[in-house]
């Protein structure tokens, strides 16, 4: 029937997309990951402005979920204090597997303006949970949130699921 004779221009009227199962899965996972809805400090207000209609964070397919059970990634928006660090550790553990972390703002990246005398401030969230994307700024502009989100989507779409050797390479 000559299905494959349109191989060089796959989308021209053909409607058949060839690709690996990984790409299909990653495309689905990266374009619709839901985040755990909670804000710590000033970055949370920028995050609210980000969620509102002007910057519209939902066009990345993200929906705010209030329980870690249904969240794919967690956004640490604000200063992490020691009292809060134990809770974030619990929240991170309670999230369902393939989970990612975006650390927003210089406070959660490295302690930010409170690194020198902040006796109660954790100097960087990566001391307790593995972080995938860091967003600099204090507070970062909403455009920086979008760049962080795109970086996370790129990272998810590059992950290999079945091929063990490739997974170790790109992880």
């Amino acid at each position, binding site marked *: 029937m000559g299905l494959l004779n349109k191989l060089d221009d796959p989308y021209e009227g053909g409607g058949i997309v060839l690709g690996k199962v990984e790409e299909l899965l990653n495309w689905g996972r990266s374009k619709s990951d839901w985040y755990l809805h909670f804000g710590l400090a*000033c970055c949370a207000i920028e995050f609210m402005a980000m969620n509102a209609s002007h910057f519209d964070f939902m066009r990345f397919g993200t929906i705010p979920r209030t329980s870690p059970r249904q969240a794919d990634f967690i956004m640490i928006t604000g200063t992490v204090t020691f*009292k809060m660090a134990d809770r974030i550790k619990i929240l991170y553990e309670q999230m369902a597997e393939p989970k990612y972390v975006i650390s927003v703002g210089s406070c959660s990246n490295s302690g930010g303006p409170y690194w020198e005398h902040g006796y109660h401030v954790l100097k960087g969230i990566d001391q307790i949970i593995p972080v995938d994307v860091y967003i600099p700024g204090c507070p970062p502009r909403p455009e920086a949130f979008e760049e962080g989100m795109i970086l996370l989507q790129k990272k998810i779409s590059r992950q290999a699921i079945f091929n063990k050797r490739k997974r170790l390479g790109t992880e």
Partner: protein
Amino acid sequence: MSEKKKIDIEYSQLDSERMRINVGPQHPSTHGVLRLEVEVDGEIVTDVVPHLGYLHRSFEKHCEYMTYPQIIPYIDRMDYISAMNNEWPYVMALEKMLDVKVPEKVEYLRVIVAELNRIANHQIAVATFGLDAGAFTPFLFYFRDREYIIWILEKLSGARLLYNYFRVGGVAGDVYPTFKEECHDVIAKVRKTNAEVMNLLIHNNIFIKRTAGVGILTPDVAINYGCSGPVLRGSGMAHDLRRDEPYSIYDRFDFDIPVGKGEVGVVGDCWNRNMVRMHEMEQSCRIIEQALEQMPMEGDVTAAIPKRIKLPKGEIYSRAENPKGELGFYIVSNGTDKPERLKARGPSFVNLSVIPEISKGYMFADLILILGSIDIVLGEVDR
């Protein structure tokens, strides 16, 4: 025949055990990281124990190591929704100690910028209060309008949220040419949206049923708890520092102090506190318009800023009317360029201490509304 005793068991007499639930640090409607340990009997809240400190960033310890101008960015990060208003009492305190004469133009610019930030703060307060009651559209309306205000403040100071704009005796950036026109059309937009939200949310029957008569705070309890701002004025007490203790040039403007009159529900309930915020936005627009007319356009805003700030040995307590209430700074200086002790009295910290008193006996969902009507921000509660 023995008289048949009518057994009428009132449900509340059947004692049922009480459950303790954590409305914990990660919760969509605690406006930040606040933990309320709630004791619940079925659906009725019997006791609330707030636990704070999840955002304690050791602000007062930093003040002992930073010089006076370096502290201003940390003060922004206390109440990060109205950063401009935060800086004002601190800067006024230093100017009073150094008795620096602030030029006219700077005074007017400070009033305009602080009132713009008050509108932005009330917009977030009413928006999140609507979210707590389940109305999502006012959130989108108000955040769209808040962007217009943010752009003006960004053109002035360079930052969207934490401005670091006030200096001792002046302000950081001068006015850009189209400042007046943009302020006027932002005020027009704010008034239009307020009118829309007035009948969309405030006089909406469901909203009234949910908020009227909930979380009643009587004036004398409010004063004893040290409440201030819309929480105190919602209970019918017309205490506003801009009128009772006019600082800067507030005595030149005529504006009135909205007070909870109880058109709907009881004076001192969630609805009236929210209504006071709606009226205050209108009053702030009036102040901005008067300030824009009287503002002298010439003069350099950074003229009176002293090069080296070294406070004489002494103490001062200065306070100003923040959108959330009365923000006060107690500065103890020992003659060097670093304060020996700086205590910040945040309005949210004090207003929050009323929650256990006014949320007993209500349904669990009303507790979330009461917390939303108090309008706290955790940076100021935990400092």
